[in-house]
């Protein structure tokens, strides 16, 4: 069984190819849109995707050594995400499915992050800390679905880091050699400032921290100290929320996924938390699968296809606000 998957929810147009036999992932290629200034402009991002799609698609097929005829089905991330970007991916997937007569499989982007993480880390039933530019969520399986145990009440962790870095003029580029500018700057920080640390139940909130950090800088605080404080508060609060999730769900492992999962200080904090709790296994998703990628859509598409889940091309609408707990996950019931 061979499935091709398309990811286009935000800044990445990714194509992956998955097989039901080892090594499972046959190809994982992408083109990433980086705005010259400001945040993501959805329309610009979608134009970038349309322009790069043919190249990314053919390089995935080449990488996997298969032709479109060999594919069993096409999977596509229909949400959640930015409308124009989702529409580009969906249009391409629908066209491929219709033209080549292949079944189409709808995939929820967040579920896909979790499933590729499970494949890569080998963890069976972890608590999931999903941190990216668009999302910050704590999830775990319960009663056959992935349920949300905590999330941000305003902006995401990735958004906090990017916006701060941009506002204070240390980005773009946001990430250099796998490290975020805020992480790099924080290493030279010496003093912890008094900025708000907000955890509400299992939820976190970052917009107050963002404003306070910018205000502290304008009031004459040292950039390095502000970065250090921002990093410490932001990462500690998601790790605390995750620890609460572990206590609440009684899961015995934790998995870190999403673009921000690549951050070394965040990884260290997750490891330290797990170590202190004792008997908690840690799964760190490798970089090629932690950010947005096509392989995760292909792999999750494969899980659906095994359960006979497909969608009519005419009914494959995008869902910008698709919640993970609204998505069926038939394979969870059996394990």
């Amino acid at each position: 069984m061979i499935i091709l998957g398309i990811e286009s929810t935000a800044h990445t147009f990714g194509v992956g190819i998955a097989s039901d036999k080892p090594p499972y992932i046959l190809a994982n290629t992408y083109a990433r849109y980086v705005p010259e200034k400001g945040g993501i402009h959805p329309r610009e991002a979608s134009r970038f995707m349309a322009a790069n799609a043919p190249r990314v698609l053919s390089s995935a097929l080449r990488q996997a050594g298969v032709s479109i005829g060999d594919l069993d089905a096409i999977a596509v991330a229909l949400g959640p995400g930015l409308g124009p970007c989702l529409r580009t991916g969906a249009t391409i997937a629908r066209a491929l499915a219709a033209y080549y007569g292949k079944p189409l499989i709808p995939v929820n982007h967040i579920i896909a992050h979790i499933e590729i993480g499970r494949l890569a880390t080998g963890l069976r039933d972890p608590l999931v800390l999903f941190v990216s530019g668009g999302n910050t969520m704590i999830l775990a399986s319960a009663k056959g679905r992935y349920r949300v145990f905590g999330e941000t009440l305003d902006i995401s962790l990735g958004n906090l880091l990017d916006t701060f870095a941009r506002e204070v003029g240390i980005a773009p580029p946001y990430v250099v050699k796998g490290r975020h500018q805020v992480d790099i700057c924080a290493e030279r920080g010496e003093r912890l400032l008094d900025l708000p640390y907000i955890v509400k139940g299992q939820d976190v909130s970052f917009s107050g921290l963002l404003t306070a950090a910018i205000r502290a800088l304008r009031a004459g605080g040292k950039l390095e100290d502000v970065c250090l404080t921002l990093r410490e508060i932001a990462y500690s609060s998601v790790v605390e929320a995750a620890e609460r999730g572990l206590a609440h769900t009684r899961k015995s492992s934790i998995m870190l996924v999403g673009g921000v999962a690549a951050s070394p200080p965040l990884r260290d904090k997750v490891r330290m938390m797990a170590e202190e709790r004792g008997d908690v296994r840690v799964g760190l998703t490798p970089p090629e699968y932690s950010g947005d990628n096509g392989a995760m859509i292909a792999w999750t598409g494969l899980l659906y296809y095994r359960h006979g889940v497909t969608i009519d091309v005419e009914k494959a609408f995008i869902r910008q606000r698709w919640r993970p707990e609204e998505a069926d996950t038939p394979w969870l019931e059996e394990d």
Partner: protein
Amino acid sequence: MVRGGLTLIHMGAEAKLYRGIYAGVEAVYKYRVPKKYRHPQLDARIRAYRTLREARALMDAGINGIPAPAVLLVEPEEALIVMEHVEGRLLGEILEHVSGRRLEALFRMLGRIVGRMHEAGLIHGDLTTSNIIVTKDGRLVLIDFGLSSKSRRLEDRGIDVHVLLRSLESTVPEAAEHAYKSFLEGYGEEAGASIAEEIAEKVREIRMRGRYVAERRQSSLEAVLHNRE
């Protein structure tokens, strides 16, 4: 931290809880443990602050007729609080086994308690079913006030209720809606039906946030960065 005559009863996410006798009373010792993953300064600040917050809120609750354990001793620098022991089971543990009338009665009662608490200007901050004790005689007692705050804002009340609703949805999804309805009725009995309706509306709004929606994200960010300055 082992002291004479204390037995560990719970290892939570942030605290260790021991059972013992304090001044002749059946007591719970709650000690907030240091976290290595937090910067030591930040860690000390958070533990002392939450210990103090919890003690103040427990006293506040007592004054306002909101069922909560009485405070016996507070040591903010030690991150230790000693309170009255409440005999019973956690709401979260019995929820699987209640339904129908009994479920309605429980959540109506909870709604009344939370409505009264909010009317008194107290926000719980971690209102999950693991922080509510059901006593043998069927009363409800609120615990774990470390994340509480003083506020009358609709926003803060709404988040309290959102946290409760999500804890229901993630553990007993099939009963959540039913329980929530009774909760809101009880809340309305204390705070007034129109406030309960405003809260319900606020909760709906809160649930639209933090979701990956371009327009929302852009506009909320701009508000944060430029207008509210």
